[in-house]
């Protein structure tokens, strides 16, 4: 059963990629396909990031341990979509003009922030295998709490791209705020009950 759920989640997580590839093949991305791909892959990165963040609260509320079991895979899918997003920007929008790339990352604040979020996701992805978890011990948890920072950076990155209407940033920002807020209150509650018992 657990294996079946995992396979199902894996297949579902690939659906956005398949749909995008189909749109590329059908030439259905509009007159500026690079820009459209960047927007789509960026939005899917932030969606997967939020989905990953939602798993722990969902587990606690539903008491279904199955949620927690999907955490690593969805985290890696977040990194995957963010990598595609980064590559789309690098190849299709910047055309691998290496000199410009460094300049862009330094000079465009929204790119600096987006790139920082990506570096965090990359570090979390590299340290996600079980061997790394064992090796890092206590530090692993500390390191992986950086996902909170990455999610805030991702929302700022989006907010900075939007121009006249900040609707999407408000939407994803609110979701991130709820998920981080939940953890904060859980942390306070846990600390208080600890005090009472001691």
């Amino acid at each position: 059963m657990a294996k079946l759920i995992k396979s199902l989640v894996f297949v579902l997580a690939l659906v956005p990629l398949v749909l995008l590839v189909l749109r590329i093949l059908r030439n259905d991305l509009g007159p500026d396909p690079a820009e459209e791909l960047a927007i789509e892959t960026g939005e899917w990165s932030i969606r997967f990031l939020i989905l990953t963040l939602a798993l722990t609260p969902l587990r606690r509320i539903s008491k279904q341990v199955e949620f927690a079991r999907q955490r690593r895979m969805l985290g890696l899918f977040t990194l995957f979509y963010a990598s595609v997003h980064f590559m789309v920007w690098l190849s299709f929008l910047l055309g691998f003009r290496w000199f410009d790339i460094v300049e862009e990352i330094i000079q465009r604040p929204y790119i600096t922030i987006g790139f920082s979020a990506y570096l965090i996701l990359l570090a979390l992805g590299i340290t996600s295998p079980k061997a790394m978890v064992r090796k890092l011990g206590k530090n692993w948890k500390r390191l992986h709490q950086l996902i909170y920072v990455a999610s805030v950076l991702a929302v700022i990155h989006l907010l900075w791209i939007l121009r006249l209407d900040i609707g999407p940033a408000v939407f994803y920002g609110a979701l991130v705020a709820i998920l981080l807020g939940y953890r904060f209150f859980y942390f306070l509650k846990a600390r208080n009950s600890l005090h009472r018992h001691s």
Partner: protein
Amino acid sequence: MLIKKPADIKSSEITPERVYRNRREFMADGTRLMLGAAAAGVLPSIANAQNGDSLKARAPAAMSRSAPAPWWQEKFADIKPAPDSEPFYTGETLTPFEDVTKYNNFYEFGMDKSDPSANSGEFKADPWSVEITGEVAKPGSYHLEDILKPHALEERIYRLRCVEAWSMVIPWIGFPLASLIKQFEPTSKAKYVEFETVVDADAMPGIRSRFAIVRWPYREGLRMDEAMNPLTFMAVGLYGNYIPPQNGAPMRLVVPWKYGFKSIKSIVKINFRETMPNTTWNDLQANEYGFFANVNPAVHHPRWRQDKERRLPQTLFSRQYTDTRLFNGYGDQVASMYEGMDLARNF
């Protein structure tokens, strides 16, 4: 990664063929349309058919604005075709009608590029009136028909460079802004011209958004010499026909040497004033969008590099970066207006 085998013929070379075909189709449809109009008692001039042949670019038969008032049809019956040389013409490949009308920044209709064409179905561009105010001898509220009456329409093919680093080549129909300005006789105090876009919350879903960080109406402005420059154009059509809502129906500004956001759409107010007007983007982020907004490859926008541009339409695997030119290539006509000005500071 999928790598498409390059075609024998470049896609950029195919487009004119399509435009050419569209012109043929339009002519055939034009004849049908004329027969229909004749039956309905409206008698369009024969010039319509001759016109179709001489204009440089014609839209596909399916028109974006259906059945406009007879005076519109009369107006469009006689259009002077674009010349064969710069600056009112460019031989660069036209951006197809489909892309010109489906890839738009018109935030009143929504944020995505596809929103304006998808969401503008309720928009009514006829009847339309424009308020003329400020330092002018003949202020008042004028019906568009009366504003257009003294002006002969002409075709112009201009490059359009968006601040977002993409660009198009568009065949507009319209008349010089200078002749409109002369029509209302501005006073000697008129140093700037200010424009306003319509605010129609019922027909424009973007206006109803709760997360818009802008105060409508959209505003733009030009210095008087910029407004009087022969390049500055008031467009009422594109690709030989009535301008669709998503492109700024019924009348919009076209300032080809400035970033696209200066070319304000669906104008309802023209105000002549002594002082520099506030403009929408400048009000929102003064460090990003200047009043002049002249296309300049040497002055980067905080969000977008400006030394290169993506000429649309693009395909994924044949990246076409064109070098952006100072004043979008219209320097001969406009550079003298900015002599002695620090363009990096007055961006």
